[in-house]
């Protein structure tokens, strides 16, 4: 019964939670060719940008999955395949200097923040050229330069930390906004609400992005959450929220712009529930038996974030097959280069075992 119920809800992600997103039109994903009112439009350049960025994440993650299968990547490896439109749309609305923090499904966020494929992949393989010199792995990478603050493995911890990034912006009055990403599973952690409370109390410039991919590991939203409309999770604190079709990069960018503007202008935090879907298991070792193959297949065929953009590029912007293939080839080249680098880069020097534990205090 549960499976049947889930199947019936597998239509548009916006509908699944019982409420249409404020801006994204129903069925937008399916009818990529039709111009639907209320769905924001992208210019050709914007579509191309989104396509490239999302495709890079998709191909990168596919390669990571393959390298995991070959034993080159160890431990946990959580892939972002299916959710690409969320982080790409958010980044299209953010400004240089805005910070990003997320949980352990973080490769896509790093690439979208502009971190190098080589450094990310080499961290996955535990090599010295990785962003954390091989000491962090898939779940723990950071880039001060790109304002990416991790990469956190304790579910929900990044929400308080993200509020802290917002606090720092508030303290410094520097006009930056922090984007704190977490999943539908993390949304049930207590510290999330402690953070909501403080963020609204102090009007911190932070946007809470809930990536609702419907499953917290193997537990569906309905089995774990009394309130499955995550955009309402801030209601008791007076934090505005909205549900967004997280499979449509245009809808994401549109909502992100509103949320970021709200935070940047001193009005406090904002909640975006991104209704999205992960195609793969929770991690590489998850056979994903808790959902039907039909459900996954339908999401892939009808709502794929990349296919939507590809279809619009072809139909509306008259991009030729050759041009699309050239983009694909270019992306594949970046990913193959990263994989090659990550395969042959040496492991960290044994002396690295005892470095980076404490910083030396400056001499007074």
């Amino acid at each position: 019964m549960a499976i049947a119920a889930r199947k019936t809800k597998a239509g548009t992600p916006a509908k699944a939670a019982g409420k249409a997103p404020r801006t994204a039109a129903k069925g937008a994903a399916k009818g990529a060719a039709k111009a639907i009112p209320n769905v924001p439009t992208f210019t050709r350049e914007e579509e191309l940008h989104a396509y490239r960025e999302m495709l890079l994440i998709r191909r990168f993650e596919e390669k990571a999955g393959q390298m995991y299968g070959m034993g080159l990547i160890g431990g946990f490896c959580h892939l972002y395949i299916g959710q690409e439109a969320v982080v790409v749309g958010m980044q299209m609305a953010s400004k240089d200097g805005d910070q990003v923090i997320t949980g352990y499904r973080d490769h896509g966020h790093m690439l979208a923040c502009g971190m190098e494929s080589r450094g990310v992949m080499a961290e996955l393989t535990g090599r010295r050229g990785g962003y954390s010199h091989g000491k962090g792995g898939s779940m723990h990478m950071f880039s001060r330069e790109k304002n990416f603050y991790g990469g956190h493995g304790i579910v929900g911890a990044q929400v308080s930390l993200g509020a802290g990034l917002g606090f720092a912006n508030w303290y410094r009055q520097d006009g930056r906004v922090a984007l704190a990403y977490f999943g539908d599973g993390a949304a049930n952690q207590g510290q999330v609400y402690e953070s909501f409370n403080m963020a609204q109390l102090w009007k911190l410039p932070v946007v809470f992005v809930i990536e609702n991919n419907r499953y917290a590991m193997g537990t569906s939203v309905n089995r774990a959450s009394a309130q499955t409309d995550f955009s309402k999770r801030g209601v008791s604190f007076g934090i505005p929220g909205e549900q967004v079709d997280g499979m449509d990069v245009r809808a994401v960018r549109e909502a992100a712009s509103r949320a970021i503007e709200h935070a940047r202008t001193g009005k406090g935090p904002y909640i975006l529930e991104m209704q999205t879907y992960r195609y793969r298991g929770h991690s590489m070792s998850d056979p994903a038996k808790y959902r039907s193959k039909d459900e996954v297949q339908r999401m892939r065929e009808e709502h794929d974030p990349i296919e939507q953009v590809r279809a619009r590029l072809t139909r509306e912007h008259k991009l030729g097959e050759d041009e699309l293939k050239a983009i694909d080839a270019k992306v594949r080249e970046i990913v193959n280069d990263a994989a090659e680098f990550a395969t042959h880069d040496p492991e960290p020097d044994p002396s690295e075992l005892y470095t980076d534990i404490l910083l030396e205090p400056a001499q007074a």
Partner: protein
Amino acid sequence: MPIDILMPALSPTMEQGKLAKWLKAEGDAIKAGDIIAEIETDKATMEVEAVDEGVLAKILVADGTENVAVNTPIAVIAADGEDISAAASGGGKAQTAPQAAESAPPAAVGEAPRAAPAPKAESAAAAPPQPKAYDASSEFPAGAEIVSMTVREALRDAMAEEMRRDADVFVMGEEVAEYQGAYKVTQGLLQEFGARRVIDTPITEHGFAGVGVGAALTGLKPIVEFMTFNFAMQAIDQIINSAAKTLYMSGGQMGCPIVFRGPNGAAARVAAQHSHDYAAWYSNVPGLKVVMPYSASDAKGLLKSAIRDPNPVIFLENEILYGRSFDVPKGDDFTIPIGKAKVVRPGSDVTIVSFGIGMTYALGAAEALAKEGIEAEVIDLRTIRPMDIETVVASVQKTNRCVAVEEGFPQSGVTAEIGMRIMEAAFDWLDAPVARVTGKDVPMPYAANLEKLALPNIGEVVAAAKAVCYR
């Protein structure tokens, strides 16, 4: 170039599995992301997705084959435009298997954790360097005016001075601002520095510890006050998993300059949930510094160092000590280095080492012992991590006897660590086993008589010192 598809691993420990089913047939076109086969182990079933595009030229391992080793070629894909039959017969490009670089971690030898890589063979054979006691005699600046001050005032002055010195320093916690501090340690700070730098938080330890750590990752220097460290248990995940580990996990990119401070350990008659001494807990964690001062001058000098330190520092105070007065030198430049113990009372017969409020028992016992003709050398550890074991060992080499004292629980306690470190570094110098005096192995009781029994006392330290002196 044809490409081999290799048998994937479902998990890091998988060595072989069953090729349950092919979902594509020879000759089928394959796109990246297509599910081409299912594999099984005794634990799980999983789908194999194609990463490369082309045509499935040949299936090398048939449906239902058991015990297929990981990384065995199971099929060959011919890329667009390639000759399928040639690909099928010729086999694919050999995909290189992971090359596990031959490297072993440096052997953990004696002092390794602090001294980085393992010593070379020849130096390991040589005599260890003579431990050198830290000389605390010149910590008070020459000619500085000395004033009497409570620990509470010393802590407040340390924060105020550092906040004047550095605009990135701020204080947050419950009742730190308008209430002037639950224990009045932050008295006057709101008036001088304003509400942006002295921030009353809701009662939300887990949340505000995380907010503090997040702010510190950007380079701000928060002082997070816990009303007591008992309540920091709500926040310990952020302290350990976020504050202590991020520098290492980021390969040195992201430091966390934060101070967590507040009263720790037993006060008086507040029972089990408000009396826990957490020194041993935090001292277990690499990536943290742990400071536990006794005197007002150490409280001030060490808190100033902690605020300036680029690492997360756990600063353990004691409610009973807040009101005690000590000599403190005047002046904004006075600091005490973290990680250095202090010989508080010289002696030749037995070394008594303690820290924090444990020092009251250590010093009281030394006085009592002197009346019986035993001269105890008393060392205040001051910092629990990194531990200045050299100063302790130098003393033990002189006295050949040691008693370690703490209010915390005995098992896996700080005194247990001290005993072990002395055994590692000075076993041959000992004339008696190291003794310890600790809080009793029970949750703190409320009743006055039981509480007294649960805590260490001077008599116990005296008895332990006499025992190691065989008197």
